[in-house]
């Protein structure tokens, strides 16, 4: 008999809840994590109708939520989610709010991973900061950073230095679309360098909030020198979905 179980991914930026039944997603909710991660987790469970279900938690805030069935790291949950949605994938590039990771996967299991978490370069935070400086909201990235735009080189990968660099470029009246393209190229080359630590094998899929943007996907494909496919329509919910699948397995549902 199959019953409903849930996965809760309490990320640094967004809290995601997925409910599955018989291995299929039946409900997905996403809320901002800030300012109160505990309240966000509770609300996400309520909106997903998962308050009484067994839950596996994951993400930065995974220890915050009680009661729970178990907690797993987001890398393990991500691999499980990708394994179900794109079983053929060999590499996952995940750009998260606070870190980015490149995970080698096989059949829903982690083979190896590299992670950037001591520095904002190459993470969603970098994009957030630049989006603010350029005054271009992230949902407009695709519209601004069109394929024909020629990127301006951003030489600093450090978020603080790159921010000053971008301010400098703006004060010289360089066009914002070229700067943005440069910013995306810088982020993705940083992620590609991370990927070289584990060796990127095709097919490559992308997850995390920024993977919604085709401009980011294009820059990522260029930086890696191979095609990258985002997991659509909800690249940000893959980890919560994976956590729910792990929950189903452990609860015997």
């Amino acid at each position, binding site marked *: 008999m199959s019953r409903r179980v849930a996965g809760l991914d309490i990320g640094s930026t967004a809290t995601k809840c997925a409910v599955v039944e018989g291995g299929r997603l039946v409900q997905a909710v996403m809320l901002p994590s800030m300012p109160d991660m505990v309240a966000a987790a509770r609300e996400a469970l309520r909106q997903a109708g998962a308050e009484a279900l067994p839950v596996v938690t994951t993400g930065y805030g995974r220890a915050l939520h009680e009661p729970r069935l*178990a*907690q*797993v*790291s*987001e*890398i*393990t949950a991500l691999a499980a989610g990708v394994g179900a949605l794109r079983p053929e994938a060999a590499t996952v590039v995940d750009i998260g709010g606070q*870190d980015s990771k490149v995970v080698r996967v096989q059949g829903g*299991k*982690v*083979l*190896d*991973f590299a*992670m950037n*978490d*001591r520095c904002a370069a190459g993470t969603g935070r970098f994009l957030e900061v630049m989006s603010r400086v350029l005054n271009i909201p992230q949902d407009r990235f695709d519209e601004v950073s069109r394929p024909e735009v020629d990127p301006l080189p951003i030489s600093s990968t450090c978020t603080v230095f790159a921010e000053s660099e971008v301010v400098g470029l703006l004060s010289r009246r360089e066009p914002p679309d070229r700067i943005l393209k440069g910013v995306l190229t810088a982020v993705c080359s940083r992620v590609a360098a991370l990927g070289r*630590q584990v060796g990127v094998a095709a097919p490559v899929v992308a997850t995390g909030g920024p993977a919604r943007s085709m401009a980011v996907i294009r820059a990522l494909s260029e930086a890696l020198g191979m095609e990258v496919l985002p997991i659509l329509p909800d690249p940000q919910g893959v980890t919560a979905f994976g956590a729910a699948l792990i929950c189903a397995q452990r609860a015997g549902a």
Partner: protein
Amino acid sequence: MRKLQHNAVLARTIRNQVLWTRLGSRLGLPVAWVTSGSPVELVLAAGFIPFYPENHAAICAAREMSQGLAEHTEGRGYSRDLCSYARVDLGAQWTGRTPLGRLVPPDLVLVSNNICGTVQNWFRLTAEHFRVPMFFLDTPFHDGPPTDGDVAYVREQLVAMAPEISRVGWRRITEDRLRKVTERSREALELWARVLETASRRPAPFTSFDAFVHMAPIVSMRGTRRCVAYYRGLLEELRRRADRGDSAIPEERARVVWDNIAIWPAHKQLKKLFERHRVALVSDTYTSAWTVEHLDPKDPFTGLAKAYTDILLIHGVAHRVEVLTRMIQRFGAQGFVLHSNRSCKRYSLGQYGVRQVVTARTGVPGVVIEADMADPRAVSMEHLEQRLVPFFESLGAGT
């Protein structure tokens, strides 16, 4: 899971050692400050009480005193990029603050560059501060095993140094005294090697987290009878534990090995993290950095020359790959953890390459974690968990 009885014995032993150093110095015995890789047997034969600034810095870090001391040194213009042991220890010398109550000043310092180049400058500052002579043993770096020429070069320095050290000490270094001390060092090292070997039993009765702490006597008391007695006792206890099937980790699910110095500011939290995930840290390159086979009471100078040119860190990266590969096989490890230690460049250089080659040779995965041996500002438990937990999960361990 049962606590080691020797944890209490260790605490007593260290306390006695501190008291003995203080008392001995008050009675007029000379004190030598030495690096962990220096030929301490020489100063012991000359009647010195040795003191280990590296150990001292580790104690400062474990007792949460290291940051303030490091900041004092940085305030004098020394870069934060320098070794944290050096910054902490110099800070302690200059401020007089130490968890040991009081530092016993040296009558000489003895340094070898077989562990790194930083100690040379660090101990020179120490020698200047206390206005005492510095003895320096230069050891050639090598990619393969040390050549006869390397050994002869080091031996010559040891022979030349002996009468000079004797002059500062209270008795002459004779071959006979050196033989006795060397014999005790060899015996203690042999016992220590057997202690470490017990972790190859399943389940492991002892982990590297225990070894990081129980290595204190082998570092700071080798060459003494008390050191031999200590390890004889510890080995006995571990054998009893192994025979009873007592494990260091409840329900051991995975075994991994470690590269680089311990992360002292997070030692306890890290130990708990491994325990919680049922992962046994069965061996490491740090506590087994000495080699026993060279010490030779029959020809003490040659034995010492060989032993101190064969320290782990004096070898190239290829040697580390060898050591880790053998360790993984002997201890039946399913993975390895490389601590990229911000402070110790010589130990951390090349680790990403080491990781790839060791994985290719053994088929087991490795993970690199970034931290520091003594500077809490460069240690983030959050980061360590972010790296280690998914790694443990991929090995089939977890909460």
